[in-house]
């Protein structure tokens, strides 16, 4: 319905998009800058990338980020999926409360969460490092999985599980043979999102990482306080590339799942996908 023949909407959209992408583009461009100061362009160079790959501290931080991401996302997947499925079957007064509280981590500002974890973990005398990080990250990853799986379960025909039981499947078999395969796309989407959230996190990580353990975002954060160096630009560019790769992987997974018969779920993608016009939005500014 193009009643507006003016180019105004298009121009506006373009300008805002430019505004959004400009910083990112600049970061990438200057990562190839020969010179150390970002203002002057001295020529194309990959030397910062070379330095980056030789920086052990950064590589360690990268490893930490990845391990943390995978561990938290797995823990959240297990707890969250079982929880979401169980919540649809159990009828207890406490149900609503538990659901509400377990989604709190993405609803309250991160700073509060970080501070609260720090205090609590201290009192419990937990070792600050990977342990506390995984616990904290799992806490804010669970809600993503919980929401997605719950939405998927709502769209699933309950007769399918009943049919399985009718044919002789025990509750566990029903879960493994029928429920799990059908909610898998939602679990995967949730995991992907959770993984991205974990990789991205700065605020909570700062509080609970302890003196020695650094994740990638922390490294970038501490560096920026000292001033900008093109090495960080290079790091940022690589992180950007990884992000795009993960996004592409997500698209690929989505495509593959659509081939493997997602139909049978009554409503279409009941909340299971990221890019179909429904992006999970959190209240504390976390990207994703």
């Amino acid at each position, binding site marked *: 319905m193009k009643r507006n023949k003016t180019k105004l909407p298009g121009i506006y959209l373009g300008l805002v998009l430019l505004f959004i992408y400009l910083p990112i583009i600049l970061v990438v461009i200057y990562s190839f800058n020969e010179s150390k100061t970002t203002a002057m362009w001295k020529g194309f160079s990959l030397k910062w990338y070379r330095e980056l790959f030789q920086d052990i501290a950064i590589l360690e931080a990268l490893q930490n980020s990845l391990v943390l991401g995978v561990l938290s996302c797995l823990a959240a997947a297990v707890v969250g999926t079982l929880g979401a499925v169980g919540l649809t079957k159990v009828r207890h007064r406490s149900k609503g409360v538990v659901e509400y509280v377990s989604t709190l981590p993405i609803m309250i500002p991160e700073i509060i969460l970080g501070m609260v974890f720090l205090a609590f973990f201290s009192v419990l005398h937990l070792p600050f490092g990977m342990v506390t990080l995984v616990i904290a990250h799992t806490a804010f990853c669970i809600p993503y999985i919980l929401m997605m799986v719950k939405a998927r379960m709502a769209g699933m*025909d309950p*007769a*399918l599980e*009943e*049919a*399985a*039981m*009718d*044919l*002789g*499947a*025990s509750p566990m*078999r029903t879960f493994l*043979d*029928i429920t799990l*395969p*059908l909610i898998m796309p939602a679990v995967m989407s949730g995991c992907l999102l959770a993984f991205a959230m974990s990789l991205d996190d700065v605020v909570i990580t700062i509080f609970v990482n302890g003196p020695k353990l650094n994740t990638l975002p922390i490294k970038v954060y501490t560096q920026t306080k000292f001033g900008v160096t093109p090495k960080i630009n290079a790091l940022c560019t690589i992180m950007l590339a990884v992000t795009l790769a993960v996004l592409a992987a997500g698209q690929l997974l989505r495509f593959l799942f659509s081939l*493997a*018969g*997602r*139909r*049978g*779920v009554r409503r279409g993608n009941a909340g299971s996908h990221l890019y179909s016009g429904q992006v999970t939005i959190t209240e504390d500014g976390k990207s994703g």
Partner: protein
Amino acid sequence: MEDNVLELIGIKKHFQDVEVLEGIDLTIKRGEFITLLGASGCGKTTTLRIIAGLESPDEGKVLLEGQDVTDLAPNQRDVNTVFQNYALFPHMNVADNIGYGLRLKKVPKREIREKVSSMLSLVQLEGYEKRRPSELSGGQRQRVAIARALVNNPKILLLDEPLGALDLQLRRAMQMELKRLQKKLGITFIYITHDQEEAINMSDRIVVMNQGICEQIGTADEIYNHPRTSYVAVFVGNANIISGQVDHLAGDQAVVDTCGGKALVNTDGARLQPKEQVTLAVRSEHIELDENCGCGMKGQIAEKNYVGGMHRIVIALPDGSRLVSSRCGMDSQIEVGQEICFRWNSSHGVLVDRG
């Protein structure tokens, strides 16, 4: 005792604050095709689910071949269900769907393949092994659902309005199919429908249900020609419910005073007293219009229309109530407003609601 494959004793069930089943007692014989017939909300689906084990009754027992299975989970009962929307597993192909029950019982692969194959021939879907449910039409999915249930050779097959989603032609064809299958396999079928035509065509016996109780259990003939309650009379076929008072008895018949006049009724063994209030059910097609007013009843024609191939005439009685008479063909000589006499055979006036 072994002749009864299923017994429901005193089944009661409520959901939230609603009494859905108020005491169901049912005995089903091995190998019979029995239908639970009733309007939405009468409790037929709940009864089926209780038999399957998908719901637990609040009170009462379910006996399967004499054994109390009331507390057994659905996967522990030798009963299989064909669900209303088929509930085919979308992530499995036809062969895997059908073979699921057998896989759970750890039947050897080769045997599964053979059984699946023979099932597919039975439902006339040979060659469809690798297809996915999403690729099948409604009728095909339905047949797969039936095959999936039957392959396990259950003691009872439960069918929850399986033909509801199909168009009329297909429905009629499937009715024949199902009846044929049942006769061939000899498995007890418990069928649910709200369609009286379906029930009459397919069943050995019909259970008419209304608001959580069984109104009447009997063969199609019994239900149709000898309804015991006014609900059954009206639900199956078209019936007029007429109240009256017994005037006097004459052998095995009674003369009943109704608003339209005196009617002759077969007592059928019922012990009637003079002055007793009774209710009669007379089917529309049994009300004959009498041109020459003999000893019959009188009324005035209120409406006439032509519906479904039948000439339908509404007769207004002096007390304001109406009777519907229907017959084949058309009669343009009858006018609205005309005084008319009508009668029925003594065997066609059935005493109902006799407590």
